[in-house]
């Protein structure tokens, strides 16, 4: 096996017709296009890392990442007889290895040279791609001038730093003999191949009955590819394309509808009677495919929770410094993926909890030392999957929740009676109660309580739940459980007059037809229903929405016992029509803020049903 130096000496002999006759791998179009694809990915990330390195020349991680990129390109090129690529990658790798070992300082001259190499390799890939497309495989020829330039960075007699490479003199055709630089002349750009993503866009532009040139207008597709962007997209990676998030949301939406429609067909009572085996098989096959399509569509909208976690690290740093505390933040499961829409809405509650931990949960270093704990406290964020849900854990090793104080406060606030017998969990859960804390009591309350009701509200809005556990002196843990996606919910379809509404099932505790004597009126205005020994407020949906109901009397109607913000109430509707999974749709900006309406959903017959926002319904009726 030749040594490195031997190989470098053979570079001059590397000619374009050094093709694949001896090596069947090198002529394999599949391997070559994999090579091009993967190299482009590396080149893209190399460029990004180089920019980082330019800011922080000592950033070992960036150096390592760039090294690995060139290293992999070199490895692939070696197998595929792409000698010109291999040699440049090898030289750059050598430089980076020296930098890694502290034998060479990264200067802007070094970065310039590496960028130049990256550009050269990018051109090589384009060239190779063209030659693949034309069918006559020609490997890019060696770029001796570039090789020399890179080598000189580590040349004896001067490190890159000392040589002070003239940045004004990059490798230009004037400096090198034209013969040695065939690449410069061969680097004709490939015609950009822009694949139109039709389908949805077409659909959106469709103008029925109107014989007009409407489709020529591009306003329907703001994301339509324009000139310069197309070029960028082409070079940065054939493996991924940029898609407007609204398109993606629409796709996920429609796929959700498809899943529901599929399940409606599959469970159609007409089909249940004596399904022929073939139809049964085909239906199952359809179900499997729909499932797979849904999973794939969903996955496109998933992003790792890591970037959200990263945001908290800055917060922890700032807060702990301000409060004179020493805190280590530990992150786990950053790769866990969540629906982009959930990640966005999770940011605030998460920040809030972390802030609470640092501000209130964690003791000063002195206090910690006094109590025999390490002076540096730990805040941990963990994400992972559990039983089809996303679980996010925020814990600290601070002083923990003080049960006695919470109880005292709750009694003071009239949230519980003085002789109430509560379990530990019930006591901790008091901190989520809206009445538990207000801004002026921040410092009174042991540890927490600061706006935890807000946190719980946000989590519930995401259709998740939050629990807390704590041990005095050992710390507190918040556990968030969230659905994988916001797109679909289980709902009860209820009727009021001629209208149908969807009640999200997660908020429903039970349904009942109340006996007449269980209904009473408080202070002549607020109707109440006695359910299992508790008096619960009654909200007439028809009244809230101005709809004429079929039944005016609660005892003729159906009561849905629901939970909102930790409190129970009864929602009065005419009847239960059914249970259905629905895709949640926005009603659009003009109707975004209607109290009591969370969105719309397409029902089985194609009509729109409004999804109720119980929080809004109950809140609005409460404030009257």
């Amino acid at each position, binding site marked *: 096996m030749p*040594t490195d130096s031997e190989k470098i000496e053979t570079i001059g002999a590397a000619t374009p017709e050094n093709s694949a006759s001896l090596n069947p791998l090198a002529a394999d179009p599949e391997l070559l296009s994999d090579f091009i*694809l993967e190299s482009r990915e590396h080149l893209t990330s190399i460029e990004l890392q180089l920019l980082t390195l330019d800011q922080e020349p000592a950033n070992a991680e960036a150096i390592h990442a760039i090294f690995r990129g060139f290293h992999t390109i070199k*490895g692939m090129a*070696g197998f595929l007889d792409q000698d010109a690529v291999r040699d440049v990658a090898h030289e750059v790798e050598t430089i980076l290895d020296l930098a890694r070992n502290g034998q060479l300082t990264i200067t802007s001259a070094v970065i310039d040279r590496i960028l130049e190499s990256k550009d050269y390799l990018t051109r090589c890939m384009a060239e190779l791609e063209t030659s693949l497309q034309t069918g006559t495989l020609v490997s890019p020829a060696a770029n001796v001038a570039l090789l020399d330039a890179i080598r000189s960075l580590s040349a004896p007699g001067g490190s890159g730093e000392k040589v002070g490479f003239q940045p004004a003199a990059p490798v230009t055709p004037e400096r090198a003999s034209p013969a040695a630089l065939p690449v410069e002349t061969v680097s004709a750009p490939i015609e950009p191949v822009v694949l139109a993503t039709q389908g949805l866009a077409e659909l959106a532009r469709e103008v029925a009955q109107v014989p007009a040139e409407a489709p020529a207008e591009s306003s329907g597709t703001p994301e339509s590819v324009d000139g310069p962007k197309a070029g960028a997209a082409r070079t940065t990676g054939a493996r991924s394309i940029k898609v407007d998030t609204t398109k993606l949301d629409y796709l996920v939406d429609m796929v959700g509808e498809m899943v529901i429609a599929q399940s409606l067909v599959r469970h159609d009572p007409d089909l249940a009677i004596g399904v022929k085996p073939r139809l049964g098989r085909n239906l199952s096959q359809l179900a499997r495919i729909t499932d797979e399509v849904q999973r794939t569509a969903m996955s496109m909208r998933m992003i790792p929770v890591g970037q959200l976690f990263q945001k908290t690290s800055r917060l922890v740093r700032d807060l702990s410094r301000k409060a004179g505390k020493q805190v280590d933040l530990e992150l786990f499961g950053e790769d866990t993926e969540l629906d982009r829409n959930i990640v966005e809405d999770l940011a605030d509650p998460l920040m809030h909890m972390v802030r609470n931990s640092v501000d209130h949960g964690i003791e000063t270093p002195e206090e910690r030392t006094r109590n025999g704990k390490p002076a540096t406290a730990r805040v941990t964020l963990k994400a992972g999957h559990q039983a089809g849900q996303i679980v996010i854990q925020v814990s600290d090793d601070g002083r923990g929740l003080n049960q006695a104080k919470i109880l005292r406060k709750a009694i003071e606030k009239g949230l519980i009676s003085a002789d109430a017998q509560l379990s530990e969990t019930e006591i901790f859960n008091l901190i989520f109660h809206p009445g538990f804390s207000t801004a002026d009591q921040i410092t009174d309350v042991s540890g927490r309580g600061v706006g935890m009701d807000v946190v719980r509200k946000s989590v519930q809005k995401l259709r998740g739940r939050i629990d807390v556990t704590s041990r005095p002196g050992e710390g507190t843990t918040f556990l968030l459980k969230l659905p994988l996606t916001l797109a679909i919910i289980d709902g009860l379809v209820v009727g009021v007059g001629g209208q149908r509404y969807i009640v999200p099932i997660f908020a429903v505790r039970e349904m009942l037809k109340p006996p007449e004597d269980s209904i009473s009126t408080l202070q002549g205005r607020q109707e109440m229903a006695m359910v299992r020994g508790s008096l619960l407020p009654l909200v007439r949906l028809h009244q809230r929405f101005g709809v004429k109901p079929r039944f005016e009397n609660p005892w003729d109607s159906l009561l849905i016992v629901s939970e909102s913000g930790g409190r129970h109430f009864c929602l009065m509707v005419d009847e239960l029509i059914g249970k259905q999974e629905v895709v949640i749709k926005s009603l659009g900006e003009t109707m975004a803020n209607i109290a009591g309406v969370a969105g719309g959903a397409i029902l089985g017959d194609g009509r729109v049903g409004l999804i109720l926002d119980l929080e809004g319904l109950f809140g609005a009726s409460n404030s009257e």
Partner: protein
Amino acid sequence: MDVLIVDDSAAIRKILQRVLIQAQVPVGTVYEASDGVEGLATLRKQTVGLILSDINMPNMDGLEFLTKVRAEPAWRDLPILMVSTEGTQAKVLEAVERGASGYVRKPFTADQIKEKLAGLF
């Protein structure tokens, strides 16, 4: 024979697979892993007769992977061929010390790997 190929480059994994076939190694199922962590996870689920592993990989590099594999009694004698462009004597030695069955430098030809494998079986 089922084979596990550990390399962070998908293209190289594919290439290695081709080379094995060219070398007329009786390859059964080929499992792929993009780093040591994935490699270990695969090993816990599948039984393989040969491992080819890169050295320079993110998360868990090839040498750490090697060490972890060798730490398991069941995998002590599993043939592991380290495949890397890092051809320095020191690296080869380190790999062998940690229990590699062999070391082959990228790129290699079918004949070269045949030769290496002949020494293993």
